[in-house]
């Protein structure tokens, strides 16, 4: 059974007195333990609604969301579900609850009713994992955006979830902050086998995931590995961009130089070099 399973999920928001806006329609998504999945889609595609469904902040109108077999519609299971899935949202300022970094990280485990020694250990470990140990006693408001978001991640980590959902968690950060957060998440996925569902607009970020799911106006329109970039229409039809190396490769192909579909900047360079060397410059 998949760890996170959305089966035929429908969700709509009320709009005005009697109208509804459909946010998600018959959505089927799975995330396995240890997987790194990117969820992409343009504004209004239903990405954030999906994030909220994962840990039962909202429950589907139709269909079912299960976490490790437990449906999110079962209120008595919510406590256990939220131990298994942690969500990091876009704005770190909205996710800070205390005035000292380590207290903020301790908030989750304290609410799990853990013994103090265990809380201490989890907080230290979580702050170490995100590289924020030296700021344990600082006030969160005096940190940079990237640092604050790493503290928010530490707060989720201290719960020891098996899946972390990041809802555009790097959206408000500068390039350095974005890299800090991405590196931490990748490391946790690699070293701790924590599954990641990363919702993002940055196609270069999505290209680093094991699997990419594309959401368009409330429906899943593609679900696959990076080979999806070989069929760029699935991205562009959903109102998305492509990583710049894919776009340049397409333009080269249109002008008669086919270098295939590079899946990273490095592959792009290698492919161009190989093609130019192979041609010997006499095409």
């Amino acid at each position, binding site marked *: 059974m998949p760890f996170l399973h959305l089966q035929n999920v429908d969700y709509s928001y009320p*709009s*005005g007195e009697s109208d509804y806006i459909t946010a998600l329609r018959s959505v089927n998504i799975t995330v396995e333990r240890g997987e790194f999945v990117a969820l992409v*889609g*343009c*504004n*209004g595609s239903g990405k954030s609604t999906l994030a909220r469904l994962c840990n039962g902040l909202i429950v589907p109108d139709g269909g079912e969301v299960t976490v490790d077999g437990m449906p999110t519609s079962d209120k008595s299971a919510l406590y256990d579900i939220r131990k298994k899935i942690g969500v990091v949202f*876009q704005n770190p300022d909205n996710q800070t609850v205390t005035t000292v970094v380590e207290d903020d990280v301790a908030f989750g485990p304290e609410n799990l009713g853990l013994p103090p020694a265990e809380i201490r250990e989890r907080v230290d470990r979580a702050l170490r994992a995100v590289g924020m140990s030296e700021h344990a006693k600082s006030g969160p408001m005096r940190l*940079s*955006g*990237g640092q604050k978001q790493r503290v928010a991640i530490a707060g989720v980590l201290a719960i020891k979830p098996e899946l972390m959902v990041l809802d*555009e968690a790097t*959206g*408000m*950060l*500068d*390039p*350095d*902050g974005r890299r800090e957060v991405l590196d931490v998440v990748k490391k946790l996925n690699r070293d701790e086998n924590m599954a990641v569902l990363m919702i993002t*607009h940055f*196609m*270069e970020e999505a290209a680093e995931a094991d699997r990419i799911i594309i959401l368009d106006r409330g429906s899943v329109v593609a679900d696959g590995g990076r080979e999806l970039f070989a069929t760029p229409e699935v991205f562009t039809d959903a*109102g*998305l*961009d492509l*990583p*710049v*190396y894919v*776009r*340049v490769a397409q*333009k*080269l192909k249109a*002008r*008669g*130089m086919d270098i295939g579909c590079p899946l990273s*900047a*490095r592959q*792009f*360079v*290698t492919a*161009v*070099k190989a*093609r*130019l060397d192979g*041609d010997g*410059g*006499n*095409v």
Partner: protein
Amino acid sequence: MISVKNLSYVYSPKTPFNTQALFGINVDINDGDFFGIIGNTGAGKSTLVSHFNALTRVQKNSGTVFVDDVDLSAKKLDLKKLRAKVGMVFQYPEYQLFDDTVEKDVMFGPKNLGLPVDEQRSRAKAAIELVGLDYAEIAGRSPFELSGGQKRRVALAGVLAMRPEILVLDEPTAGIDPIGKRKLMELICDIKKTCPTIIMISHNMDEIASYCNRIAVLDRGTVKGVFAPRELFGSRELLEKCGVELPLVTELAVGLADAGIDIDRSIIDQDELVCAILKAGKYA
């Protein structure tokens, strides 16, 4: 034109939280510039631009800021006039929408300029149309039921309704999807036809490289320099000195050059890169 001379700024002076944000900044922004300001979090970008419409006042003995011939370090300032001239669009401006209809929200600026109601309304209509929204369809709706992209456009219209001559944009495309980003940048180029001077803070080097004619690099409260895009992105030395990351296209060009291919390292445009590669392979 905006002229900043030797500007310093200290937050919470004479308290334990005393933090100096700007250290003797000198920068001139000319009429007609699409002026980029880059630098990491904490570099002082927002502090600097918030001086331009006197939201942040020049502190005593801390330099001067002139907008045309108006001295912003003067004690008495015609703030109304200044703020009609210098429009400021903050980060995530949609958080500042407040009225119950789009039209009223956009009319708020002109109303505060003391304009007659007819004029407020006609300016709101023009501004809403300028940002690419359908006035008849949207004017009576609540701004809060719009999509994120629409909200941002409404917020931008609210500033444009003041008919500024200088527009300051703090990360205008943050949080918007890639195609929406491109459309918004095209819109900003359109706006530039009527509001000739644009100042844009951005972390997106591709946008900075494609749209700005001059770029100021800020670092921990100082100006590292003001450069033309190619001058900055083509010089490895400058980039390293300023801690600036490359536009993605330039990164590819540099990768190719490093691999021994004859390619200019200062390329900032996709089509240009395509041509350069084709030329290197004698496809062109």
